[in-house]
């Protein structure tokens, strides 16, 4: 698996990032703004994939990490006059801390029990955002004004409401997280995570403290999800309880399933595909979810391992 194709893999990933960079010069404004959203949400899926794809732990509560990033950034910028980047930093730290504490508690549960615990914690966080609605404004949410999203970096004024800044910031965030997971997947730790997914008991008897590795995986996964949430707050300026609902826990699961569980680029493919599926079908019909459902069924039937997962199985065994 690891012993060949290192050059190919690096070229592929840098190529994808390069294409995304070039795309901003060709894409019409509408698709450009879609691409921004896709890159930010794909980052969320990338984070989800670390836990589910590489470590084999299924979560239905990742919205709590996304929301931790979103609120961590949004609230500090809104109330505490943090600069945009300070806010994003704080959002990321919040998600990191939350995933660590959550992991210590929840990883005692296994399998379905773990799944349920993730759901319950996420639900608790969602209700918390409603409970403190004097601060969070609940499901109505609040908006970061253009002024709050402007800062000077090295003398230059940077407006995070400017499409060019938005596009490149989203690209930077996505690329960093993508490359991080690529390094992780090919590192000794990545090898252990996959081993835990395949057979945890055996991995313990090879001398690995699997509990620690699962915690590490959860923290990386939660933190990347928080990066996405923080970037979302900054770039789209709206912070509301919707992002903490179970729906936002299910999205990354679907994106990853669609793109390919346990593939580095699967999250991007899955997110983009789902986004345009909804975008295009909703042009034609108000019952676009029916179309989405039908396409998902087709994919499950013919691409049970997701698009890249199936490609890897049939033709491209070197895909990481």
């Amino acid at each position, binding site marked *: 698996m690891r012993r060949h194709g290192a050059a190919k893999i690096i070229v592929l990933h840098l190529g994808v990032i390069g294409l995304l960079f070039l795309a901003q010069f060709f894409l019409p404004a509408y698709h450009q703004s879609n691409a921004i959203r896709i890159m930010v949400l794909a980052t969320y899926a990338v984070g989800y994939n670390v836990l589910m794809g590489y470590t084999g732990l299924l979560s239905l509560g990742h919205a709590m990490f996304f929301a931790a990033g979103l609120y961590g950034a949004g609230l500090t910028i809104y109330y505490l006059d943090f600069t945009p980047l300070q806010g994003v930093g704080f959002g990321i730290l919040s998600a990191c801390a939350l995933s660590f504490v959550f992991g210590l508690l929840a990883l005692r549960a296994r399998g379905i029990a773990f799944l349920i615990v993730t759901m319950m914690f996420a639900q608790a966080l969602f209700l918390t955002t409603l409970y403190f609605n004097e601060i969070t404004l609940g499901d109505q949410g609040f908006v970061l004004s253009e002024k709050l999203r402007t800062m000077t970096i090295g003398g230059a004024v940077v407006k995070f409401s400017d499409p060019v800044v938005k596009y490149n910031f989203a690209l930077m965030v996505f690329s960093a997280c993508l490359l991080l997971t690529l*390094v992780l997947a090919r590192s000794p730790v990545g090898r252990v995570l996959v*081993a835990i997914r395949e*057979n945890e008991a055996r991995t313990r008897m090879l*001398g690995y*403290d699997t509990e620690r590795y699962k915690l590490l995986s959860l923290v990386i996964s939660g933190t990347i999800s928080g990066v996405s949430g923080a970037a979302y707050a900054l770039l789209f300026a709206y912070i509301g309880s919707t992002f903490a609902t179970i729906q936002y826990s299910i999205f990354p699961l679907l994106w990853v399933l669609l793109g390919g569980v346990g593939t580095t680029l699967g999250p991007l493919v899955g997110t983009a595909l789902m986004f345009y599926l909804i975008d295009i079908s909703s042009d034609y019909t108000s019952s676009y979810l029916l179309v989405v459902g039908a396409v998902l069924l087709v994919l499950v039937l013919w691409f049970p391992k997701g698009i890249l997962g199936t490609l890897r199985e049939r033709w491209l065994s070197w895909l990481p």
Partner: protein
Amino acid sequence: MAAVTLLETSALCKRFGGLQAVREVNFSLAQGEIRAIIGPNGAGKTTLVGIISGRIKPSSGTITFKGEDITRLKSCQRVMRGIVYTFQVTSVYATLTCYENVALAAQRRLMTGAKGFLTLGEAAIAERVESALDAVGLAASMERPAGELPYGYQRLLEIAMGLALEPELLIMDEPTQGLAEEEIAEFCALTRKIAGRATVLLIEHNMPVVLQLAHKITVMDRGTVIAEGTPAEIEADAEVQRAYLGT
């Protein structure tokens, strides 16, 4: 053989509810020996080695390894001290290649400090993997998914994973189960080779294998050690005849 004691258990007990699987076992292993544990089904053999390897917590008693009390150590910590267990039912990673299977074991020895978690010289891992696969004769199957290997080869792969962990004590639970005659002969040769580097503890039902390999044999029945001695002594022991050999 006035050898150094590698492992010693003292008054080791394990109860599963009402069942006393292991009772008051005082067991010791000398460095460098090949020891076989035999006994009828349910004698507590697997439970005993499970306790030694850390997979099962003892109800009471202590285990000392190279002079250190390891009773409270987790199995992964024991592996790092050199106690390696290979499974009774093969549990290789079926979807991963043989290389990856052994690499997982090999890199464990190299992963020290924070740096070891992110980058390791793949060359150093590859070298260890190749030598472990070579030792069991699987070098040619390096790139095959482990699940595609015939059963006997999976057992060998399991042993290669054990070897790559550089054991001081290699515990093998029924290693010849399901192997063909010629594979068993190869296994015996391999075990003798391993014994040059490590102490070997076998649970084995196949008496010819036990008699030709083991320096000493421990016989268990109903959770206790009923006899211990050289193969010749055990063959002559009347109580063993009654409990186990059945003749």
